[in-house]
């Protein structure tokens, strides 16, 4: 198993090199003048644009520029984001924890409900439960996230005043910025627990419920459908018929089949999780949630190239790591993969 993981990890730098080369190549399609604007912090520098191009070697051959850029990235220098008014690395550190929290909190119900509904749907194929599951999946898949987000906000905040937008309330804002509060991780849920601030924990959780629910509803549809089809395939196989013939309980049969149906589910789940981590811009905008999605959406609108590049690099890395995690999970779920 260790050898398997090591082999996969060894692939990681190669894959990242490919991804960064592709990203950098895309960036190179812009003119040297456009790329020079990255280095300009003051409009007055525009008069010396040619000097900026020379200073940063923006007309150098691709490989020279790529290696220079790679060295900078390795040092953690991703440039300056005009949208966030801070260096990109600092902005990622500032915005990413909020997105991690939201993604994790959404991903748990996505997995639990997605797999449960998918299994239920397969076991009760063409029954009422299956139809209901299909209805949930179709509406989830086709409903725009901003529409669902606004509806949830209107009902659960506007009418019931249960779950407010934002990351936490103003009351909590005082606690978070108090000198006695230690921001160990930047994850408010975790930091509040580590600081023993229960009220803050509950408050932050209340703010996460609606964006997490929105993401759950629109994201789990795919998982439900994949789980269903994978389960149907397994349930139709000979070993299931044999197990049933031998009198194994239906619950035990489903448990066996479900384990074998995990492979496609893991693939989809890892992609979904990385997509969530990459920022969910519409959900974050509707709920005024200060995550990476809202920032990168503004950055993209304002052609803040360093920010877009930085986030693209982050999401590509996450995607690679997500795939690695999925590969490891395949081996955990199916021991035959280890031996292959």
């Amino acid at each position: 198993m260790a050898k398997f993981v090591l082999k996969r990890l060894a692939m990681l730098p190669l894959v990242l090199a490919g991804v960064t080369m592709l990203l950098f190549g895309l960036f190179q399609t812009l003119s040297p003048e456009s790329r020079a604007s990255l280095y300009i912090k003051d409009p007055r520098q525009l008069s010396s644009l040619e000097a900026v191009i020379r200073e940063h070697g923006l007309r150098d051959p691709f490989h020279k520029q790529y290696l220079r850029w790679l060295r900078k990235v390795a040092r953690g220098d991703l440039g300056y984001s005009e949208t966030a008014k801070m260096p990109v690395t600092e902005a990622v550190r500032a915005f990413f924890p909020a997105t991690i929290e939201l993604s994790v909190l959404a991903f748990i119900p996505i997995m639990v409900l997605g797999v449960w509904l998918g299994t239920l749907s397969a076991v009760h194929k063409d029954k009422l439960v299956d139809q209901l599951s299909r209805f949930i999946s179709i509406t989830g898949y086709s409903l725009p996230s901003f529409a669902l987000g606004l509806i949830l906000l209107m009902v659960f905040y506007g009418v019931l005043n249960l779950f407010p937008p934002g990351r936490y309330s103003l009351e909590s804002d005082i606690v978070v910025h108090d000198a006695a509060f230690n921001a160990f991780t930047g994850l408010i849920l975790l930091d509040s627990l580590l600081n023993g601030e229960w009220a803050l924990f509950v408050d932050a959780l209340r703010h996460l419920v609606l964006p997490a629910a929105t993401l759950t509803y629109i994201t789990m549809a795919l998982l439900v459908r994949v789980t269903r089809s994978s389960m149907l395939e397994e349930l139709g196989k000979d070993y299931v018929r044999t197990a049933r013939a031998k009198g194994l309980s239906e619950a035990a049969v489903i448990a066996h089949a479900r384990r074998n149906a995990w492979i496609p589910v893991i693939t989809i789940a890892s992609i979904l999780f990385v997509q969530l981590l990459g920022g969910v811009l519409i959900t974050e905008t509707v709920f005024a949630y200060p995550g990476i999605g809202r920032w990168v959406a503004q950055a993209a609108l304002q052609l803040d190239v360093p920010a877009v590049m930085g986030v693209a690099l982050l999401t590509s890395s996450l995607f690679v790591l997500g795939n690695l995690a999925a590969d490891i999970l395949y081996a955990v779920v199916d021991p035959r993969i280890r031996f292959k």
Partner: protein
Amino acid sequence: MRRNLAPLVLSLAFAVACGKKEAPAPAAQPGGAHDKTTFVHVTIQDIDSLDPAWAYDTASHAIILNLYEPLVQYRGSSMSELEPLISEKVPSVANGLVSADGRSYSFPIRKGVKFHQGGEVTPEDVRYSLMRFMLYDRNGGPSSLLLEPVTGLASTRDEAGKLIEDVYDKVAAAVTVDGDKVVLKLSKPFAPILTVLASWAPVVSKAYGASVGAWDGSKETWKKHNNPQKTSEGFHSRPDGTGPFMLERWDSKTKEIIMTRFAGYWREPAKLKRVVVKGVDEFQTRKLMLAAGDADSIYADSLAKPLLESIDGVEVIDDLPRIDMNPTIFFVFKIDVQGNPNVGSGKLDGEGIPSDFFSDKDLRLGFAHAFDAEGFIKDVNRGKGTRASGFIPAGLPGHNPSQPNYPFDLQKAEQYFRKAHGGKAWEKGFKFTIAYNSGNQPREVIANMLKRAVESINPKFQIDTRAIQWSTFLDQSNSSKLPMFILGWAPDYPDAHNFAFPFMHSSAKYPQLQHYKNAEADALINSAMREIDPAKREKLYKRVQAIAYEDCPTIFILNAVRYRTQRKWVKGFEYNAVWPDSPYMSPFYTVWKE
């Protein structure tokens, strides 16, 4: 089956547990929006800078005037009556503080006024503040408001951008300390000078400034601090004023600024303990925050009014007359095309526009006739306000209702477009981006109205519209990167000069970033500024407005009225049309919650 329902039950239980009413009630929490001593305003704009010498946008200025104090201020809603602030008296000829020739103003400086970071205001601090405001003079900044009447110069730099050597001496000679008084001498009589000082050049601490990298007040060093970069001096983000509120935190990440009551304030402390101004781009979210009481007031444009009127506990204060010129459409005569994604190819080849695209008058007139201003007022502005007939709004001397404007006429627009750039624009077509600040719906509508109308005239005409975050929008417009943009002008002080100069004088903010210059307009504005006879001034401004109509550097749309939305528990709001970002923002000193 019962076991299968467990995840659903658990999820629901989780949701209910998190949202149950037994969770700490917001109303009971100090510092929150429901706390009667905390005021929350939710808007779309973010802050550009907190440096009084840099900030020249309404969002920043409105915050600055709560943190800092000028020498005098407007009395309540009046635009002409002033009351003393850092100065113990409002200078007048009657009280002997204004010289008979109208050129010398004496300000007896109030004693016992403390800065937030410690120390008391001295006349030297006031002198430093006035001088710094003038000598800082960043490109497109507010310095000329004072520099011009004091020295007769609109800028500290000549047209080539070179520093004018004797500027420092002129400024130093014009601002002097005489015992407990600060004396300000003008180059020529300028009647609105006190209204300029009611909003601008608030008092900053000289010692604190020097300690945070700002100018130290000496002749030897001022040049280094002339036209600096935005963040190079500590005043940008670490203010030290004397105002009723002090900065607690400015978080550009969440677009949130928090001010707390200054306990050492020289008057009665403010009734509010805390003021929070936060940015939320999505209107529905702002509306829900207002409805839930998590916001005490919000920014909302004319389209949103019907949606706000029926909310319980919310009041809409309508028909507040404005003397601003907002929105307006600006053409940039010399666009910076290098590395600029807003101009496509940067050439007149159908895939972009060249730097001098809008220097062609026919092209500008084509756009002017392609915009349906009346339709905008009727449909977008709910019929509120009247069509602007020039840059001086209704209600100010100099406004000329008989000045013609450009009727919406697509045939006429086509005639102009056909002539533009010797027919090449029509033949090749063009492609560029119109920008507006994100969240501002009326400006978004204007951009799209123009896009649709112009694109319908010739299929080779392509226009993209783009929303840009406020502070970045300002940066890009200041650097002439936006070929055409939609912005507005709120007055610095209520006088025709404050519209003629920024819109038409080649040394001023907009013409500078538009690269527009009309020598006759410059001369007329200079004359009008020095003219004491109101009738003669009015005549001069009428001619400048006629030039604006002929040259069409800018499209003026609306004499506006606006409305304010707030919770009914908000009391003490004072509407003054001159206040920055009014009626959404106001001096928070007078505000409280019932």
